[in-house]
């Protein structure tokens, strides 16, 4: 049985139109004209216990809105969410005991208290038994090397240090599910790697189900087994990363620097996916078209300065999906 089931989930926001100026303000107070934003639009998916899933999409796609509904701090407009047999909004308190949440953009620690005091408070809030608390604190301090700054006030931590503390805070009470909204935002390469390593380990050793949103596709590639892509509130891909690569990785990419910016570029069996000055990106199907054919066509018609062939990485695949949609 899935640990999370989401069925026909939608969240619509009413955005009231505001006019400017005194009379505008006054009239918008009375006429309640509004637009509807479909932040999440008829979304369906399930998560099995122990899965590690990446939830990605462009800015404003609806990722955070989905996470907020899953954690129970936002009520769906319609549809159904089942998390461990609970409705997160209806059973908010009970739900919060069994989940851990990290919002990369904000901390759940107490700003002017030393880190360890925040942990102590959480121990009481979640009523964590002393021995479990000690055991978990030791485990996470060791794994994330928290020792040097346990007695530092949170406001003086670096972003990376704070994120490590927030991860610990979210896991002290042994939650079954961990929700992460952009946990690697603003971190440097080393810190990101540390977070990824940590998530893999927590998932493997503690069987914590993890769902994370991110804009860094390395997170997805290095951490997640499955990928869900949301676009304008709708799910456009849900499946293994390898399958996505196989499906779209058939396309190879040829990056060409032309001698001049030709206005009209026509080539058979090739898509012009992007252009930037004299540089163009050409995509073609490796099964039907060979690189040498494309290059031959090119050199016959245009003057070329340089070219490189690349096998599209997940980054490129997803970029194309964001830009062009799924085909």
């Amino acid at each position, binding site marked *: 049985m899935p640990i999370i089931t989401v069925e026909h989930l939608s969240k619509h926001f009413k955005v009231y139109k505001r006019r400017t100026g005194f009379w505008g303000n006054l009239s918008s107070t009375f006429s309640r004209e509004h637009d509807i934003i479909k932040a999440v639009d008829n979304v369906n998916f399930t998560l099995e216990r122990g899965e590690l899933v990446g939830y990605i999409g462009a800015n404003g796609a609806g990722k955070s809105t989905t996470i907020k509904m899953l954690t*129970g701090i936002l009520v769906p407009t319609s549809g159904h969410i089942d998390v461990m047999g609970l409705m997160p909004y209806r059973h908010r308190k009970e739900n*919060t005991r069994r989940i851990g*949440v990290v919002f990369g953009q904000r901390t759940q620690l107490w700003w002017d208290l030393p880190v360890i005091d925040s942990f102590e408070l959480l121990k009481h809030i979640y009523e964590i038994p002393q021995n479990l608390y000690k055991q978990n604190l030791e485990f996470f301090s060791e794994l994330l090397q928290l020792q040097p700054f346990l007695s530092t006030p949170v406001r003086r931590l670096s972003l990376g240090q704070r994120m490590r503390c927030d991860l610990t805070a979210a896991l002290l009470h042994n939650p079954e599910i961990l929700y992460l909204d952009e946990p690697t935002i603003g971190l440097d390469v080393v810190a990101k790697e540390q977070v990824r390593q940590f998530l893999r380990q927590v998932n493997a050793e503690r069987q914590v189900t993890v769902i994370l949103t991110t804009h860094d596709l390395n997170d997805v590639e290095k951490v997640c087994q499955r990928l869900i892509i949301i676009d304008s509130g709708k799910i456009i891909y849900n499946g293994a990363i390898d399958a996505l690569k196989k499906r779209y990785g058939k396309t190879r990419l040829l990056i060409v620097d032309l001698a001049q910016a030709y206005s009209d570029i026509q080539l058979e069996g090739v898509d012009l996916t992007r252009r930037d000055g004299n540089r163009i990106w050409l995509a073609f199907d490796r099964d039907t078209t060979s690189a040498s054919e494309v290059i031959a066509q090119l050199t016959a018609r245009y003057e070329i300065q340089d070219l490189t062939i690349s096998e599209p990485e997940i980054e490129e695949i997803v970029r194309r999906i964001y830009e062009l949609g799924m085909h």
Partner: protein
Amino acid sequence: MIKKYLTFTVKAFQRTLTYRFELWMELLINVLFMLVYVYLWKALYTGRTSVEGYDLNGILTYIVVSQTLLTFTFTLRIARIIEEKVRTGEVVTDLMKPIDFQLMTLATAAGTSSHTALFNMLPKFLLFYGAFGLSLPPSLLTLSLFIMSVVLGYVILFSIEFIIGIFAFWLVEIRGLYAFVIWGLAMLFSGYFLPLEFYPTFLAKVAAVLPFRAIIYFPTAIYTGQFIGEHLVTALLIQLAWVGALVGIGRLGYRAAFRKLVIQGG
């Protein structure tokens, strides 16, 4: 259960310890203000023995006790703290924890205020008590009833601020409302400036239907022995009723606020 919230009290108490310099400055200013008040009253009483049932010693005791209690009013700032939490979205973090928002806020406030009571109010009071030969409550029982009344008054003040804070979920800013209620109404009707017996009948009538007199005037009048017997019991019952009503309104208010938050998003 209770322990969960007591931890907030203890942490808030400890946190306040880190702002020592500010607190000393605050204390210094308070003491100077009180000194001015005391000398003002001494001057007003020259050639008189008693006004509205207060002799000089009585009025000085009243002034010092009420001035000391007033400290809660201008140091609590709960409304502003809630406003800040709404503005930064920190309320969402609170919402994600298995905890009661109102109780947590009260527990935190109690921590900060215990610090204020111990390191600001008590020394201030003792200083004036010694310097001007003020009176103590007539009996040990009165003293305990006084403390009880202070606590009830504190919860009333807290609840009023809590309700103001809840408005931050709807209003872009609550500074005006806060100033009107706390710096205006509360100051005017709590009786910190004068015993309410000194007020013109009309204002005294208004004061009687508002909760503010239960914050400072009631405990102070119990301390000075102005309220005794039935009068004292009535005062405590009125305080209890206000506690019930205001805590209840605060509760309904924050439920509505959180409902708005979970429907409209933060």
